[in-house]
């Protein structure tokens, strides 16, 4: 990465001190277009997330990952454990999107959509702000003695944090238990559902600890995504950055020799990870845009152009030509196109039902009727993969010399239910030749009929 032409005065700034202790961040309030847009977006995300478990599509929850029974309902689609291979396309799709989006838009995920940011800035930081007041009031109170004012505010804040953590953990849990089951369990005593209650408690404790105390440490130290920033972004990716050419040298507003930066440090005090954006792109930056709004407000007051800190590429910040299309994007397009074709065929091959015909274990064939008939025993395993109850008929494809007996010629199965059906076939030894096969036609009745033929080799004596 090319070094800026302007030498920057560096102010060490971070959420950690040199001795390893926390430099606990108390961001100041900030107003502006990005903050407004972000709060609206956070609210929309939280509403969609919290409403999803209540919505039903085709009679099934919109999102229900029933891990215990290995049944997965996603937006009207139903999957069972046999569909686990489709996860390849899910995970590779997520991976490719991360690479593609980061190359173009930088860490827009961190600032706008990551649950850590959405709940931290959209819920917990809001609670803290309303109960404890703005940055300066918080700092003053924290430094002061444990007065009544401090005690009740801290107690109320943590109480509200616990309530919020419980809310988040319950909605999260409902993704795995379904909402009706969750509500029913909430009405029962915790001792009746120790596992679910334990999970709820553990998730709540982790969420509370995370949002009350750990906060930006997750992004700065633990999250691997920020660490990949240096390999996934290039000089043309969108980042939140400081225009050093315009801003330097920092100085008083009235100083004609100084750049546009008046060194007011508003960008530093509003930063939720406690960094100084003027030090350049750094992995602690979650691209939250708070410093953009803070700086724009100051520039407006000074009557200077906005955008001293702005969304731009590193090239743009150095006043170099910007470009969107670059060779690596073409490569990504090619890979994503290949992925899309594969995913399309994979998901469209998801059969409406599964039928497997297998020979009964340990039973080749038996001769009956004084050796003139070879009886073959099979089990047909039928699973309804659709999201609604369906009725299936099982009918043999007629063939000479075969007579059949099918345990159930018609079965009705609930969504993702399965049944094993005994099938036995009497083979006329006189007409049997090795390689003959049993064929069964499975039909799904109803408005959208489907059919599938399954077959299996028949056995009999060689003549």
């Amino acid at each position, binding site marked *: 990465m090319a070094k800026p032409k302007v030498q920057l005065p*560096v102010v060490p700034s971070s959420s950690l001190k*040199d001795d390893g202790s926390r430099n606990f961040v108390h961001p100041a309030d900030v107003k502006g277009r990005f903050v407004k847009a972000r709060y609206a977006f956070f609210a929309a995300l939280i509403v969609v997330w919290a409403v999803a478990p209540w919505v039903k599509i085709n009679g099934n929850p919109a999102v229900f990952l029933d891990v215990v029974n290995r049944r997965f309902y996603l937006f009207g689609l139903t999957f069972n454990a046999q569909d686990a291979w489709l996860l390849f396309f899910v995970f590779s799709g997520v991976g490719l999107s991360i690479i593609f989006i980061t190359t173009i838009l930088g860490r827009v995920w961190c600032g706008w959509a990551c649950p850590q940011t959405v709940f931290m800035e959209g819920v917990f930081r809001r609670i803290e702000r309303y109960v404890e007041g703005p940055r300066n009031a918080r700092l003053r109170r924290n430094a002061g003695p444990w007065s009544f004012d401090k005690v009740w505010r801290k107690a109320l804040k943590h109480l509200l944090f616990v309530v919020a953590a419980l809310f988040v953990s319950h909605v999260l849990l409902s993704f795995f238990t379904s909402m009706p089951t969750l509500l029913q369990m909430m009405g029962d005593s915790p001792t009746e559902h120790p596992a679910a209650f334990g999970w709820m408690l553990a998730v709540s404790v982790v969420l509370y600890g995370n949002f009350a105390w750990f906060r930006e440490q997750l992004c700065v130290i633990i999250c691997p995504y920020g660490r990949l920033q240096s390999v996934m972004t290039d000089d043309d990716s969108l980042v939140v950055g400081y225009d050093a050419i315009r801003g330097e040298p920092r100085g008083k507003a009235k100083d004609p020799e100084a750049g546009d930066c008046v060194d007011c440090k508003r960008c530093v005090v509003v930063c939720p990870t406690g960094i100084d954006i003027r030090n350049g792109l750094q992995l602690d930056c979650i691209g939250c845009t708070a410093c953009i709004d803070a700086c724009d407000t100051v520039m407006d007051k000074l009557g200077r152009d906005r955008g001293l800190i702005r969304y731009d590429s590193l090239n743009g910040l150095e006043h170099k030509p910007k470009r969107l299309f670059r060779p690596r994007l073409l490569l990504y397009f090619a890979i994503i196109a290949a992925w899309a074709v594969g995913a399309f065929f994979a998901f469209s091959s998801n059969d409406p039902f599964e039928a497997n015909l297998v020979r009964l274990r340990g039973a080749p*064939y038996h001769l009956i009727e004084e050796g003139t008939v070879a009886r073959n025993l099979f089990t047909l395993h039928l699973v309804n993969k659709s999201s609604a109850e369906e009725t299936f008929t099982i009918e043999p494809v007629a063939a000479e010399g075969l007579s059949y007996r099918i345990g159930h010629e018609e079965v009705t199965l609930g969504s993702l239910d399965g049944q094993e059906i005994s099938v036995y076939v009497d083979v006329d030894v006189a007409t049997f030749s090795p390689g003959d096969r049993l064929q069964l036609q499975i039909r799904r009745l109803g408005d959208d009929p489907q059919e599938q033929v399954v077959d299996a080799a028949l056995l009999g004596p060689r003549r």
Partner: protein
Amino acid sequence: MSDTKRTDEIQGEIIHEYDGIEEADNRLPNWWLATFYGAIVFAFVYWFALHEYDSVMTPTEAYAAELADQGEGDVASEADLLALADDASAVADGQEVFSTTCAACHGDAAQGVIGPNLTDEHWLHGGSATAIYASVRDGITADQALIEGSAGMPGWAGQLGEGRVRNAVAYILSIRNTNVEGGREPEGEVYAEGGDDAEAALGEAAPDDVDAEPAEEDAESAAAENLAPTGEDLAAVEETN
């Protein structure tokens, strides 16, 4: 690599440099160090609690204990099954299970085809309710099978589920000793309900203990080890009927 150490304004003291890539040596976050030292302490607690003093069950032991509990709860008692045989709806369901699942080998009227006749008083693997239940649930392996050339019977618990296995047993108990027409010839020992002590003991035992059958039968079961008999073998068996 340069040996001259310098101090970066943001990163602190640079201790290594390879091809322009610099490595600083800052102190780790204190909370991170706490998890690190905490993990070391926990390792000792875990080691002593689980392996030195056995005061906490290891996951393997806990799994085995739970499995043992499950097994006990699942097994039906003689009285339970006999009571079920008097329950008309259970017997009716059992009859349906029988006609779709069992009749292929035991015949539509349970008279015996490839499998033995279930309506006489002779039983190969025990005639008590619990013995029949064990046979239906767990099956008879080829090694255990007493009919010459037979590959045994699969266990049906997986396919039918516990409830339908019990109903099938209820149906079989309801047709015991009805001696239907055209039945397969008697095989195994006579079982009289509540009578012969030896039979009752056999009934309680798992199918593994069925080796306590007569020596003659053992020889036959040894002959049954061939899992894929030729047509001639089976024809020979069938012709003896």
